């Protein structure tokens, strides 16, 4: 599903340049649930953003579902993001003046799904994250966990090939974190490919595979016995 070879990325700051990714090689199959770990500043977000086409690598190869991702125009990148990728951010990134349902419907709008269908679909995904009755509420009226579940519903509504989550539980307490992970596991059970950036070991253990980033390279890549989050949820 994802294939990257010798990926490099550095940030230029004035005359200095910070080499963050120094040759990443990584691949994953459809249906995997991968945790990306590493200390703060190790380049986890940078890697995820490149995978999400929100940012570009300096060099290296990247193939997503057989499509080489290279020298994309902004328009093309936008279309790929829309079709292939779903994002979940640490800070939720919901649009504050849109209701939960409208937020979920937004990627569908960019897919040119008709209005009526959009509403039905977004209600269906809100139902799945258990927030159907919150559909008309604004993000400001929701708790952190609820916001993240809306964000997950939004990411899933577009039916992406890969779900990218950057510290989805970073802003949540542990109970809420487990609820969110329970949701992510269920989505993964249905065959969706998911990459989760985290620095919490218990969250990483709820994935099926854990990779470790250090000094710009992957230093560890291991399969783990998945801990089900459902056992911690009431």
């Amino acid at each position, binding site marked *: 599903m994802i294939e990257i070879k010798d990926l490099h990325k550095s940030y230029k700051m004035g005359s200095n340049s910070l080499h963050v990714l120094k040759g990443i090689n990584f691949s994953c199959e459809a249906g995997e649930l991968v945790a990306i770990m590493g200390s703060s500043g190790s380049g986890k977000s940078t890697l995820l*953003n490149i995978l*999400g086409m*929100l*940012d570009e690598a300096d060099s290296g190869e990247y193939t997503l579902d057989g499509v080489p991702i290279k020298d994309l125009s*902004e*328009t093309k990148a*936008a*279309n790929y*993001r*829309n*079709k292939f990728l779903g*994002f979940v*951010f640490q800070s939720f*990134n*919901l*649009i504050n*003046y*849109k209701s939960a349902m*409208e937020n979920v419907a*937004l*990627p569908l*709008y*960019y*897919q*040119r799904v*008709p*209005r009526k269908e959009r509403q039905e679909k977004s209600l269906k995904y809100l139902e799945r994250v258990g927030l159907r009755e919150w559909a008309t509420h604004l993000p400001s009226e929701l708790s952190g966990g609820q916001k993240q579940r809306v964000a997950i519903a*939004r990411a899933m509504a*577009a039916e992406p090939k890969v779900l990218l989550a950057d510290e989805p539980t970073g802003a949540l307490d542990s109970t809420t974190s487990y609820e969110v992970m329970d949701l992510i596991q269920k989505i993964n059970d249905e065959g969706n490919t998911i990459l989760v950036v985290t620095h919490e070991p218990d969250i990483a253990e709820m994935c099926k595979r854990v990779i470790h980033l250090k000094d710009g390279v992957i230093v560890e890549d291991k399969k783990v016995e998945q801990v089900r989050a459902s056992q911690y949820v009431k």
Partner: protein
Amino acid sequence: MLSRDTWKEIFETIQKNKLRTFLTGFTVALGIFIFVTLFGMGNGLNNTFAKFFGDDATNVFFVFPGRTTIPYKGYKANRRIEFENKDLTDIEDKFSMLLEYISPRITRNALVTYNDESDNYSTRAVGPAHQFAEKTILMKGRYINENDIKGKTKYAVIGRLVEQDLFKGEESIGKFIDLGGSVFKVIGVFQDDGGDNEERNIYIPFTTRQLIEKNTDKIDQIILAFRPEIGYAGAMAFEGKLDAFLRDKKFISPEDPNGIFIRNVADNLKQNQQFAAVLQIIISGIAFAVIISGIIGISNIMVFVVKERTKEIGIRKALGATPRKVTNSILFESIFITTISGFVGMIIGVVVLGQIGGKTLEDDYFITNPYIASGTAVFATILLIVCGTIAGYIPARRAAKIKPIVALRDE
């Protein structure tokens, strides 16, 4: 150009960001409103000028006798100059090629009585041609004619307000009024665009006035009109020749500033029209400056809007919004608001102009019927919309080009 769905999305955004919408809309509406009212006031000022001078014929000279200040040809200074009937015929003979008509005018105040009503009015003893010089409009009856002049008839043509005050709605034609001790028959009633004061005048034959005043042949002033075809330059030349002729005839030094006065309406008119035109240009300039500041206002708001929405733009891009979609939604939102509020401002301006036009404004501020041609108002509004769009396009385009990762990091 845009699908219904896109419009709906834009409309929802507008609805949910009321403050932003209000700020943009208010700037635009205010700009257009000020433009329309200012421009309309300018036109109103122009109307006042036109009215001031439209009251009288514009090809007219008023000739007044004065008092000499320089001794000349054996005559001492401080001599009073007087016109008499002979002067009228002499001018007629001498300038027959240039002259359209000529009339004397002798002005006297008189107590005028009809039955129990009486009041003081200004009477003007004139010739038939005076009607054209003053643009007197007969409402009923007739004006003074040549036979009245020859016969020295005691006939009077009274102003609309004289009739109203003395006759109280009664028919005045054919009735007799006492005019300073002599009985006159009313033969006509007139109105005049020159305002209420003009309509409180009474016209009588000048020969009748002279007869009453011990059969004198003196005249207060001479009013004459040149043939319009001689043009402005011709009129100025005529004025010079007439001045020289009268000075020679009355033994007034060519250098004497006070012996004789000629008021040339054409010259006054031209100067005043130029003044009004300059004023109109200044007002238009200010009005357009208002439009320009409106455009700058919109640009600023657009920059602010885009800045404020950077994060949202990042989110939308992450969710698959293409740069074009981002630009369009920002731009069409702005066009929509600008258009609606622009036309609202324009309509309010036009309505306000219609409301404020009135007596006080006319009498105290010299603004008559302020109005703006609908073409000008629409043009200014469209100009603001178009320029506002261009001004909005630049920040919108820049926003659309920001890398999503950069936009997302914005707080």
